[in-house]
């Protein structure tokens, strides 16, 4: 496994009336995008706040780039919270400079960098506007810039796409990928599964204060594969169904004249796609075959429902 930018070990966090995190460990590989997933109230924000040193864990340890987390790491992390905003009465440029300086940046350096970002986002003319003159999407762009301006090693984005229109969502998405190319490690907390499949390399799923599963997106998908195939063929559906026998199950079928599209699940562990094909080949003419790979959304729902059913 590659080098870890962040490692959280056995994190426990209690609030007065409930336990927000129960022995949660995550490992974020360097220069990748890590999806932190989970339903509302699962404990994602609690974990993120601990990584940002807004609160401390009751027990457990966090290592950033191999070092035990401490105040000097503030400048190495960029954080875009889910609940985010700006000073409404302050001018955009002034405010961005202030936030950059709070991250420890030198004022003149920050100004040059800000100008660059403002130009790339085509918002240079906003510099002297007050935030309450801007639309929500405009303000989000500024928030994104102030989060990444100090070039943190680790970027934590909590629901970064909420509030953006599709065009700006794509802009931010491509910026995230660009930052990854440049070597930034990114934690993306979201329940927007589409974006997870698109850009995440690995994920951790948290539910009810506990981690349910983690790993690379590919491994997890393999883990959740159910030996189900989508078969597109021409011929007799009755012959096909009869040939399935007891080792296979027909899940869905869609018929258009002589053309059929079926989803078949292999029930017997010892059997594989070739067995399915050889038993049905005499009956029909295949047009296409593909494995049904579960979407992250399905995995998310399935994992949580399975867990909830257990408890």
């Amino acid at each position: 496994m590659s080098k870890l930018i962040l490692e959280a070990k056995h994190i426990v966090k209690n609030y007065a009336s409930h336990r927000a995190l129960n022995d949660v460990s995550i490992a974020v590989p360097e220069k990748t995008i890590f999806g932190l997933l989970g339903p509302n109230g699962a404990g994602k924000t609690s974990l993120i706040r601990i990584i940002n040193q807004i609160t401390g864990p009751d027990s457990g340890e966090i290592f950033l780039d191999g070092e035990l987390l401490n105040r000097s790491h503030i400048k190495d992390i960029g954080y875009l919270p889910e609940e985010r905003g700006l000073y409404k009465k302050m001018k955009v440029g002034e405010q961005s400079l202030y936030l950059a300086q709070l991250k420890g940046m030198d004022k003149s350096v920050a100004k040059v960098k800000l100008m660059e970002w403002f130009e790339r986002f085509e918002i240079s003319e906003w510099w002297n506007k007050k935030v309450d003159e801007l639309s929500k999407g405009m303000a989000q762009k500024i928030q994104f810039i102030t989060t990444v301006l100090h070039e943190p090693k680790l970027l934590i984005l909590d629901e970064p796409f909420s509030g953006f229109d599709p065009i700006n969502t794509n802009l931010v998405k491509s910026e995230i990928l660009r930052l990854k190319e440049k070597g930034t490690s990114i934690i993306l907390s979201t329940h927007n599964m589409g974006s997870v499949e698109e850009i995440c390399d690995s994920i951790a799923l948290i539910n009810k204060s506990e981690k349910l599963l983690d790993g690379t997106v590919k491994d997890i998908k393999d883990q959740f594969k159910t030996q189900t195939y989508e078969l597109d063929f021409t011929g007799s559906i009755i012959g096909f169904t009869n040939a399935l026998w007891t080792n296979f199950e027909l899940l869905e079928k869609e018929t258009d004249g002589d053309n059929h599209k079926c989803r078949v699940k292999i029930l017997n562990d010892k059997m594989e796609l070739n067995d399915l094909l050889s038993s049905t080949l005499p009956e029909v003419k295949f047009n296409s075959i593909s494995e049904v790979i579960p979407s992250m959304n399905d995995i998310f729902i399935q994992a949580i429902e399975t867990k909830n059913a257990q408890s």
Partner: protein
Amino acid sequence: MNKTSLIIKREYLTRVTKKSFLIVTFLVPFLFVAVFAGVIALGVSDSTNHNVLVVDSSGILSNNINGKIIPINTERWKNAKDSSIVYNFTHEEIEVQAFLDSDYTLKISIDDQTVNDENVPMLYKDLPSSIISTQIENNLQDDFQEYTWETFLNVKPEDYKKAEVNIDLVEQDAENLDVEDPHLRTRGWIGYALSLIIYMTIFLFGSLVMRGVLEEKMSRIVEVLISSVKPFQLLMGKIIGVGLVGLTQFILWIGLFAVISAVGIGIISSQTDVSELAAQVENGNVISQDASMEQALASMGQAGDYIEAAFSMNWTLVALCFIFYFLGGYLLYGSLMAAAGSAVDAEADSQQFLVPITIPLIAAIMLSRLVIVNPESTIATVFSIFPLTSPIIMLVRVSMGSFEWWELALSMIVLIATFIGTVALAGKIYRTGILMYGKKVSYRELWKWLKY
């Protein structure tokens, strides 16, 4: 640059560069003076004119000279000072209906029995102000006093004046006999005025802090901020920044007041013969035995009393205490109000926490009147040390010069210790409160936050 100082700088600059700051800074002193002058002017002068009919059927107060009824003491009833009262004497009583139909606004009736039962009925159409009534009563009192001296004791009014004495009790501290001190209470009232300023500014700047906290919470910028700085740095930066705004405002106010009062004294001295007063002040010779100045001050009545009292104050000490107790009180109450602001989602919800916070402050203002009456009582001592009231009470006592040094020292130490404690406490509530949205917070909840 240190992060806390960055925050202080932002808090300070965003406020002092606002137009409203300049407007408040320059308008308040003028408004203050205008309101005071207005209140005094309103209180002193009764704008309604009074036409008083004095029915003197006894003939004690007036004589019939060639068919005209004229008061014996014409000077007294002439009312040179306030021409809004006109007295008309008669010996013939009139009916109530006749009074109502007449142009007279008031009617007082004196008869042979007045000397004995000592009551003078006064009929009115509209109730006159107490100032008018008092004036009439004083005139009657003086007239009858002279009459009884002359009638029963055979003493002429002129001789009676000579015999009259007016004793002033001069309170003196046995441990400090050199200081003659006829202005103790008056100084108390000056101290009271100073503590009112402290009271108002604690409210003003305390609520500025609270609104600042709420602004960051409501605009949702706070989580971004505390991922860069500690919540405590943010809280302290805000409190100190706003406090500096307060100090700046004070310094500007003091400057403006100095200018206004210099102009004011200029106007007064050009009109009266107190020009020497200004000269005396310039020479630093503040307590003058000069008879002409005494006279000048006496002619100014109560205002003169206040000026004399002001000159007898230890202004260096008072000014230092003023700054200290403003800062101490502001830090104490400001941090509590910041905590209140962090615990709610909207300004309207803050009332439930603000009310209990401000009760001690309001109580202190009410208590300070008792302290002026009895500055060395146990109550005065206790509340000038109790940190929630000391910024008000101790300042009054220091202004009066009626305190022990150990009391002042203890009061300051307790205040410092308490605000350190309160700031720490507020920091804990703040830390949790700023990230808490959409939750109605109870006192029990706050108690839990303290233990996180």
